[in-house]
């Protein structure tokens, strides 16, 4: 069996435990990694070669407990039971040991091989928490390794320990027992389980889940499989409720909570009266009820101008050789087919290199920095009240901000939202947020020709659209949002290595997936022009492009490509008009440029976004999103034409 040759290790942990950082640090040893941007990945997996063995490691979305409350947690749980791993690695934020152990206790209840990676021990020490690793390990009965994932510390030890567990077949814990009076009822339910009952992990775990999982764990089908058991479950629930005068699930949660706190007290020392760290001081400023807002605005303004300051000179520098090359191609004798292909190739390669890269790269860097710093949650805190105006709450802020990077992961990010109404609403609004590809082109074209203030105004304009459309949508989805419960992770000064690794990944996926589409698009347009088909396409789009928006009809063909990737429309604008980048102002007026950029950046969610909305929400939502974008873009485009 191949499973034994290539054992599966699952990484599970609470959100912000540094699980993914640990995973990436390990995947650094990798030989093969699959991480497909733009496809639905509920988990990331990678293969690690260590001491001649192959380990298959899986990174699950963060989950607070094995009682899921949102789709991301449900995905993690489903994976854990559908593909039972050979070993579970529980990643813990050492600075929040008391709370994190609640999940660990649940994992111990599974009685499956388990290793604990006590991550961020440096942060814990900064907070004055000193943990005795060996003591903790002996208390919970499974091995514990201290790690600092973002500095790569403890990773080798962790992998060796995993190998050890897999080879010797150890690390199998015994479920911790609770207070005798609670335990009595659990055991009585265990005895009531039919001998062939389709349980999870072990009878005790099954009994526990029957009691606490409510409607999430086969409660409906229980009626059919075993009506007697259902009656027993309800009886035990009532008994537990009477015992502690709180809901049965809360009785069990309280048991874990007390046990976790007891373990925490025994295994660690908390130093009181320590100095307030730099991060904490910074944090109190960032979250300050008054100062927090100017800082928020400042950060976004800085973000924008930094990208522009880095991107603009770089763009000018890189554009020159491509203009020369294009000029050269156009003035060469030779068969038109060859010329068309060469022209398409140079346009596509040049667009990626000279227009997208200069802005894309700094944007990725800054995004990763904000993400790793933990600023997204803080922005969520500050903007909660504002989000209520559009019928959402602060938890949607993080997916929105992610949308500035790329809409696709942003829509996947909506999985952290508990209610499906919030998910739908947020997913419909995300395509209105200019992603990095669009931003690059906006900056390259609007800022290049009209100046940075126009670009900034243009950017702010998107916020107004999001607010307006959000307000409109909220009036249709009246059902109230469940309210904000958002963890604010401790502020972490990001490590340069982690950021660079992340950016490199994203850059690689751009080169692998997006750039080829750019080049293929340019080639496609060249070919269409060669056989004169572009003329027909332009005719089809003419009523919209020429009559409604007042733009040159030649631009119609670019809209077709814009559906693949939005920046294509803008990049191909030059090719479609048959002009050079620098001679654009002679063909397009300022109004034309603004109208076209506005229309293109709104008119339709790009193909990958449509696909991801379809997959994550529904085909209806995808269709709605397309219609919503098309209507908004047409309205805005014609409005701008009249106003400017």
């Amino acid at each position, binding site marked *: 069996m191949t499973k034994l040759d290539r054992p599966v290790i699952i990484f599970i942990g609470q959100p912000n435990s540094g699980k993914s950082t640990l995973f990436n640090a390990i995947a650094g040893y990798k030989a093969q990694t699959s991480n497909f941007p733009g496809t639905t990945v509920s988990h990331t997996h990678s293969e690690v070669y260590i001491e001649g063995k192959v380990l298959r490691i899986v990174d699950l979305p963060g989950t*607070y*407990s094995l*009682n899921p*409350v949102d789709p991301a947690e449900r995905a993690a749980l489903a994976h854990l039971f559908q593909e039972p791993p050979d070993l579970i690695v529980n990643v813990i934020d050492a*600075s*929040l040991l*008391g*709370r994190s152990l*609640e999940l660990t206790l649940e994992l111990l209840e599974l009685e499956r091989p388990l290793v604990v990676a006590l991550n961020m021990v440096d942060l814990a020490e900064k*907070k004055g*928490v000193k943990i005795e690793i060996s003591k903790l390990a002996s208390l919970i009965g499974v091995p514990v390794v201290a790690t600092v994932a973002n500095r790569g510390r403890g990773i080798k030890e962790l992998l060796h320990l995993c190998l050890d567990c897999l080879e010797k077949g150890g690390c199998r814990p015994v479920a911790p027992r609770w207070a005798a009076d609670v335990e009595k009822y659990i055991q009585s339910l265990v005895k009531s389980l039919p001998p062939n009952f389709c349980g999870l992990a072990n009878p005790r775990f099954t009994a526990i889940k029957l009691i606490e999982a*409510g409607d999430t764990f086969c409660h409906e089908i229980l009626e059919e499989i075993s009506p007697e058991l259902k009656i027993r479950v309800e009886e035990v629930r009532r008994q537990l409720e009477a015992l502690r005068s*709180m*809901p049965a*699930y*809360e009785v069990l*949660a*309280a048991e874990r*909570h007390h046990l976790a*706190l007891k373990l925490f007290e025994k295994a660690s020392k908390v130093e009181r009266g320590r100095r307030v760290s730099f991060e904490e001081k910074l944090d109190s400023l960032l*979250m*300050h*009820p*008054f100062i*927090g*807002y100017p800082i928020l605005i400042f950060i976004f303004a800085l973000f924008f101008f930094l990208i522009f300051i880095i991107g603009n000179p770089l763009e000018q520098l890189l554009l020159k050789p491509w203009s020369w090359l294009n000029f050269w191609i156009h003035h060469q004798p030779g068969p038109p087919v060859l010329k068309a292909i060469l022209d398409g190739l140079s346009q596509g390669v040049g667009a990626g290199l000279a227009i997208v890269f200069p802005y894309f790269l700094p944007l990725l860097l800054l995004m990763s920095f904000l993400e790793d710093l933990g600023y997204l*949650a803080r922005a*969520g*805190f*500050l903007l*909660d*009240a*504002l989000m*209520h105006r559009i019928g959402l*709450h*602060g938890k949607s802020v993080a997916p929105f901000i992610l949308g500035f990077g790329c809409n696709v992961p942003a829509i996947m990010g909506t999985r952290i939202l*508990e209610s499906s109404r919030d998910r739908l609403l947020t997913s419909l609004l995300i395509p209105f947020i200019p992603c990095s590809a669009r931003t690059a082109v906006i900056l390259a074209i609007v800022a290049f020709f009209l100046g940075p203030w126009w670009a900034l105004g243009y950017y702010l304009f998107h916020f107004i659209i999001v607010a307006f459309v959000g307000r409109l949508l909220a009036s249709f989805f009246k059902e109230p949002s*469940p*309210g*904000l*419960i*958002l*963890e*604010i*992770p*401790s502020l972490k000064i990001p490590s340069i290595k982690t950021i660079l690794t992340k950016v490199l990944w994203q850059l690689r996926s751009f080169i692998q997936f997006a750039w080829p589409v750019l080049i293929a698009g340019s080639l496609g347009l060249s070919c269409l022009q060669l056989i004169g088909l572009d003329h027909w396409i332009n005719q089809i789009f003419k009523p919209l492009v020429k009559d409604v928006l007042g733009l040159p009809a030649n631009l119609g063909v670019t809209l077709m490509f814009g559906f693949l990737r939005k920046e294509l429309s803008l990049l191909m604008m030059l090719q479609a008009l048959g002009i050079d980048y620098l001679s654009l102002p002679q063909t397009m007026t300022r109004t034309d440029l603004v109208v076209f950029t506005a229309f293109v950046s709104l008119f339709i969610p790009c193909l990958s976004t449509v696909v991801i909305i379809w997959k994550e929400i529904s085909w209806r939502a995808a269709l709605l999103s397309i219609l919503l974008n098309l209507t908004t873009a047409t309205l805005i485009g014609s409005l701008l034409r009249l106003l400017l």
Partner: protein
Amino acid sequence: MTQRVVRLVEAPQGVPLRIIDLVGGPGVRRRLLNLGFHPGDLIERNSNALFGGPVLVKNLTTGTNVALGLGIAQKILVEIVDDQT
């Protein structure tokens, strides 16, 4: 020793508070429990965001920081713990 039970939104800032009860449906209760907020825990209410924004709450027992919308903060009953004890 008379303790006052109030809603978290009405509780003073910067003093230790003990969670007495989480009122509200199982959805809200479970989410709070998952984040490590249990009855009996000591918490502290910190700053508020502007314009009726959320309350920042620190769980002194587990060290977690959480932003709670006003609607949620309405549903948490706390008592003020005497500083001397």
